[in-house]
Structures are given as C-alpha cells and as structure tokens.
C-alpha cells in the first residue's frame, strides 16, 4: 500500500489508564493532507498534538466523570486516545492547523510550497 501516512512499527505506550486508537480519515489533495480523527468526550484542553521528526503524535485526554447508578448497558468504554502517524510527505510544520469540532479533530497539514504540483502553461504557436 502506498500510504503517505502510516503507523510506526515500534513505540510503546507508556501512559496510564485505558487508551484507544481513534478512527481516522486521511485525505490528500495537491495542497495538503487532511486528517479527521474521532475523539468523542475530549475538550480542546485535552488535546496534545505534536509534529516531530516526521511523526504526527496525537494524545487526547478524556474528562473523567464518575458514574453512579446501576449500569443497564455498557457498549463503550471511556479512555484517552493515542495514535502516531509517520508523515512521508514534505509538510510545512509551521502551518499545521487543528480544530476540534464536536468530538472530531480536524488537522490540516499543508505541503511545502516546492512539493505542490505546479501548473505549467504550454504555449502553442
């Protein structure tokens, strides 16, 4: 598979508590890589997003709310999210932007200018 973004093969999780891999969509256009991750239950303060050594590292911390009462249905577990992506494309790290929209983290990774495809106009005599 010719993925621009792949998961690293090494690396151990060293944080306490339950952790989940968020589901993501990754989309590439001429201008950027667009990553959309599902992080329900996380507020903006809970997001820790870094781009270092060609890796995009996402930690998302869920607000812990203790629950009382008698559980009738338990279909999902609450825990933090963690996922690392290796970025092969040349990304302009200073222009990475992220936005949290109702439990969706939308990350724009713009490509470096010189790596964007350029339109060349061919003159015809």
């Amino acid at each position, binding site marked *: 598979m010719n993925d621009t973004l792949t998961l690293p093969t090494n690396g151990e999780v060293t944080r306490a508590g339950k952790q989940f891999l968020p589901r993501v969509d990754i989309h*590439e256009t001429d201008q950027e890589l667009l990553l959309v991750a599902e992080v329900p239950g996380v507020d903006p303060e809970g997001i820790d997003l870094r781009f270092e050594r060609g890796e995009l590292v996402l930690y998302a911390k869920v607000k812990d709310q203790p629950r009382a009462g008698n559980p*009738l249905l338990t279909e999902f577990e609450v825990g933090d999210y963690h996922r690392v992506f290796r970025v092969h494309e040349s990304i302009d790290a200073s222009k990475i932007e992220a936005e949290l929209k109702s439990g969706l983290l939308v990350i724009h990774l713009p490509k470096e200018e010189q790596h964007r495809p350029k339109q060349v106009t061919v003159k015809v005599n």
Partner: protein
Amino acid sequence: MRLSRINPWSGPLFNQLNRLHSEMNRLFERWPNEESRFETFPPVNLWEEADGFRLEAELPGLKLEDLDITVTGRNQLTIKGERKPEVTENGQAHRQERMFGSFVRTLTLPALVDENKVEARIEHGVLHVYLPKHEAAKPRKIQVKG
C-alpha cells in the same frame, strides 16, 4: 490423595499461556477492527438511578440539531440521525475508517418515564440524555406503623 491438590489451571506453563492470551486480547482491543464497523450505532451506555435513567452515546461530529430524539409509549427512546462525511473535496483517500449514513437506534427502558421532562445535550461529540422516571415508577418509601 496428594494428586488432587494439583491444580491443572495454574503453574508456569499455564501462566505463560494466560499472559499470551490477555496480551493478544489487549492488542486487538486497541484496533478499530473491521467487524466493529458493523456494530450497532451509536454505542450507548445506560444507567438506572432511583429517579431516572441516564444515557450517554458517542456521536462524534454530530450536533443536537442533526438528531431526532423521541420518546414513545413512555418507555421507548429513539435516536435518529445521519453521519455525513467531513471531507468532500476532491483528492485521494489514504484512510477511511469512519462510517457514514443514516442510523436509528431504539431502546426500551425497564420503567415508564416522564416524556415531557427528558433532557438532552451534546458535549464534545457525546450525547447525554436524562429521562426522569414517571411518578408511578419511582421507588416509594413505605411508612411502617409501629
């Protein structure tokens, strides 16, 4: 008999197997696997309290106005909506793990609720619904005359 004291489900070999087993489980739990894509949506946690029911559902990307939440027959809660793709522009998809399309989920509660007092809100992609029990369904303390 001394032999009967030996537990076949312990000992170093079994411990190793056990550890391998839980290690494998842990590995697969962390992966958003193919099968889980076809599970009931949205996933729901439901608790019963003395005076009502508390529900939480994971609905990332959805707002309250995108949802249709109804209570019928005083004990059936229905959540309806549609998940729309976030990315619509042209380009190449590298990963597509999120699901799209319409969904309906109906839950039958084990007691009658007061449908006029149901409260719903969405916080960071998690739906919270509180359904207070109907007066007749609330637990009642009975005074015992001495």
